[in-house]
């Protein structure tokens, strides 16, 4: 090794590097620093042996411990599932109507149901459950097929007009464009709009048409019929809209709203959780009204 020159002022050897007359001193390192440095090298070697490290063509060395981030995630998910197994079992066993009596279970069901809702339901019903045209608002007190916990759970489990599930809720409104003349439909639209404002369901020519064609499902008073999912025509809520144009389209072509049968894709605990969640959004019914 070549002998570098010593700095006059400090008496320390220089590294021989020089920039514009400024020379670098070769001061010693503290021993603890050196040993720490060596330790990091040793650590690095051990680490690459134990853990996935060296990139290969299509993968990387797996490491002696066979550890992976994916495996860790699977482990943690399994641990969470295991921790929840007890309360999930309770959720499945408990009668839906009795869930609110168990504060812990109710809180769990509502929070789990909220997560299920955001994942699977919010695409149609909206993140705030406020619905959209053709997709019912779940916050209000109007229910097409029933707003008790059991009824909501049934709707979630089997869906609506869903061919994959024979138990799905099913009904079909006729397309009156094939049955009634255009003027008759116009009269009927007028009459239905009047009913929503409190008009007599049987009065006038519109009343006659209504009683003959619509009352079978929507009821003589227009209050709807939940057995067939027929909406109440006398309240302030419209599923597709209450203006003349929309109503004309509804009566002429009919509607065919569908909902997936979530029982085919979610487990029973999730179905019950989301039913509990929807029920407590502000419109849930304790028992179906007479």
């Amino acid at each position: 090794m070549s002998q570098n020159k010593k700095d006059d002022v400090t008496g320390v050897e220089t590294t021989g590097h020089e920039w514009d007359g400024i020379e670098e001193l070769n001061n010693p390192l503290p021993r603890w620093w050196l040993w720490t440095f060596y330790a990091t090298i040793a650590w690095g070697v051990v680490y690459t042996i134990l853990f996935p490290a060296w990139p290969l063509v299509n993968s990387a060395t797996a490491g002696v411990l066979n550890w992976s981030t994916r495996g860790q995630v699977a482990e943690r998910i399994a641990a969470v599932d295991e921790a929840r197994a007890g309360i999930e079992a309770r959720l499945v066993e408990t009668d839906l109507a009795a869930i609110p009596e168990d504060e812990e279970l109710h809180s769990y069901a509502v929070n789990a149901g909220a997560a299920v809702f955001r994942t699977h339901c919010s695409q149609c019903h909206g993140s705030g459950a406020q619905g959209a045209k053709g997709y019912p608002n779940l916050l209000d007190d109007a229910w097409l097929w029933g707003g008790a916990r059991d009824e909501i759970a049934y709707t979630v489990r089997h869906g609506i007009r869903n061919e994959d599930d024979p138990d799905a809720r099913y009904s079909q409104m006729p397309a009156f464009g094939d049955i009634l003349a255009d003027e008759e439909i116009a009269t009927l639209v007028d009459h239905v709009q009047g009913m929503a404002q409190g008009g007599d369901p049987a009065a006038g020519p519109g009343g006659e048409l209504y009683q003959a064609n619509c009352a079978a499902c929507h009821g003589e008073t227009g209050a709807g019929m939940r057995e067939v999912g027929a909406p109440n025509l006398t309240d302030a809520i419209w599923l597709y809209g209450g203006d003349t144009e929309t109503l004309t389209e509804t009566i002429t072509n009919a509607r065919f709203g569908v909902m997936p049968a979530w029982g085919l894709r979610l487990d029973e605990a999730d179905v019950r959780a989301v039913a509990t969640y929807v029920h407590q959004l502000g419109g849930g019914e304790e028992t179906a009204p007479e």
Partner: protein
Amino acid sequence: MSDTQLYAAREPIFPRRVSGRFRRLKWAILIVTLGIYYVTPWIRWDRGPALPDQAVLVDMANRRFYFFWIEIWSHEFYFVAGLLIMAGLGLFLFTSALGRVWCGYACPQTVWTDLYLAVERWVEGDRNARLRLHKAPWTAHKWRLRLTKWAIWLAIGLATGGAWVFYFTDAPTLLRDIVTLNAAPVAYLTIAILTATTFVFGGFMREQVCIYMCPWPRIQGAMMEEDTLTVAYRDWRGEPRGKGLRRRKAAAQAEEVAAPEAVTRAAGPQIGGRAPVIPMPGVPNTTTGAYDAATPGDCIDCNACVNVCPMGIDIRDGQQLACITCALCIDACDEVMEKIGKPRGLIDYLALSDAPRERAGGTPRAAWRHLIRPRNALYLALWSLVGAGLVFALFIRSEIEMTVAPVRNPTFVTLSDGTIRNTYDIRLRNKQGEPRDFALSLVSEADLAIELEGLEGTITEVPADTQRLQRVYVTAAPGSEAATSAETALRFWAEDIASGERAHRDTVFNGQEN
């Protein structure tokens, strides 16, 4: 081969025992600070059945901080931030006024090193005995003394690490769990790490921590000014030193010839316990013989100040980075001055501005007069302002903590009879140890009705030490003014049924504007 060493060993320091007013002050501070540290977790404070009864507790899991009658939740972290700002300003104030007084008296590194030195002195004897023991071969006697010392150090370290974990969970329970090996692994790990750092920092690294690891000496140097009090040597009174006058004179002449070496000593790379000497401006270099060699000064060169120094430095070289201003050299020198019948204060708390005046024959200025300066007053004012603000904030903290968040998705819901409904998330906090009932009501110029989700009536119970989210529905009758206007002001009231305390929040009701 290069003759450059990769490593330079620490030169051990054996501070001599000293007594005097600063030593007594340091003992007092040591006892008080360590006493507070070790005893605090064991103080009990009754807060009711649902809350911990430990006076000072940092509950990480539940994000609660308990300090006697004060309880701080995570959303009130600004109290902690305020305390940190006060701590910062306090350090500015003390550094500006008294230099590195924190380092010398209150820094844990100083306090624990002091305690470890006391143990060392008790086991192995004073400076000379320790020096002899250091040089002695490893006999059974030396082993016995060393092992005794290390065992006591380790016990102190263990107590230090042990006391720390007690601040984070119920102390008596944790102690039982630790002894029966049932405590959480993190508790053992924390104790092990703190035991090791205390043992190594206090027993072996000592002044190296201050010189190499701590940034504070560098920061503080920038915060001092001419009137900052710091430990200094009255060279105008002490020089030339009484002992070895002739020898020093010869050395001074020799140094003039070999000047490069002298510079080397002052500014060379300092490794192993000796930090660079930074001479005070305006103080003549004492090694160059600028004083009249004929009339000896007060310093008799007894080296008492060097022997007692825990940093192993010579204060007579001037102010320097390694000096933590522990003032033990003042005690040591005063003792000697008294013995030889000279006035005390050859080494003293001095400000830089004292040097020229005293050198010109001026009388020493009282130390406290240095403290009254605009800068100190400003720091004190800022410090007090933040402190007063915190106390004020603590007292105006509402007993009822309520937040109201209107649900905006959607802003309103039309019910089947045409009623317009708004939903609000009301969060109520109960910091007390018992459940509290709150009655919720609303006040508005419009005719609005209130309903609580899942409850009959308007009373909601918030369990002890929790926050409750209560969803509240407010409805306006079909066609009413509130139902048909975009915004209607309303105010929610929450009333603690038991105490009658009330709190309110203002918000708006959204209707369907036609």
